[in-house]
């Protein structure tokens, strides 16, 4: 089975640009999560979907971050406009049922100049 696929692996953006990160969850999983990972803050939840419905939109990340789940097998995370403090690794993960186990993608490393 294919795992979680994230593209691109690396993204470099100028301050103020719009970037879109993509994620394909494990086939059959109905929960999808976007996390931001930095050394200082660790993993922070940005968004959470259950069966394509947005369940949590990350509070403090709402204004410039927007995640969408266009269908059960594809999600995007848009950051608009980007700021240097957005430089981080963005991880997508999926799960199913009431399992606590998350399956993570390899992440997108974003650098904002």
């Amino acid at each position, binding site marked *: 089975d294919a795992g*979680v696929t994230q593209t691109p692996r690396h993204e470099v953006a100028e301050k103020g640009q719009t970037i879109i990160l993509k994620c394909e969850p494990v086939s059959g999983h109905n*929960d999808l*999560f976007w996390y931001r990972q930095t050394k200082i803050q*660790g*993993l922070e939840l940005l968004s*959470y979907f*259950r069966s394509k419905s947005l*369940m*949590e939109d990350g509070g403090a990340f709402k204004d410039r971050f927007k995640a969408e789940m266009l269908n059960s097998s594809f999600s995007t995370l848009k950051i608009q406009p980007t700021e240097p403090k957005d430089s981080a690794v963005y*991880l997508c*993960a999926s*799960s199913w049922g*009431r*399992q*606590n*186990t*998350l399956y*993570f*993608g*390899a*992440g997108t490393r974003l650098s904002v100049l």
Partner: protein
Amino acid sequence: AQSVTQPDARVTVSEGASLQLRCKYSYSGTPYLFWYVQYPRQGLQLLLKYYSGDPVVQGVNGFEAEFSKSNSSFHLRKASVHWSDSAVYFCVLSAVEGADRLTFGKGTQLIIQP
């Protein structure tokens, strides 16, 4: 409120030596507990999980962890480390079933010396 503390940001161990990575949690009930590992340039992968029962749980690649309610701990152990174990290890807590309420520790970077 719930929290996870991994007191050691970095641990260095010689290859072949034993390992313990510490994890303390704060939660009033009995939590679900996990250890995940992140190898360089990869996402996190599940090593092992504790739901209930035997407090010592076995995971992949010879790892095990022991749950202690009295100490609010879930330490990870391995009898003999290999250079390929170099990675960042995360202790994770959940108060409920489902992956939507996970609390992650900040991680411990494990460095294996030859």
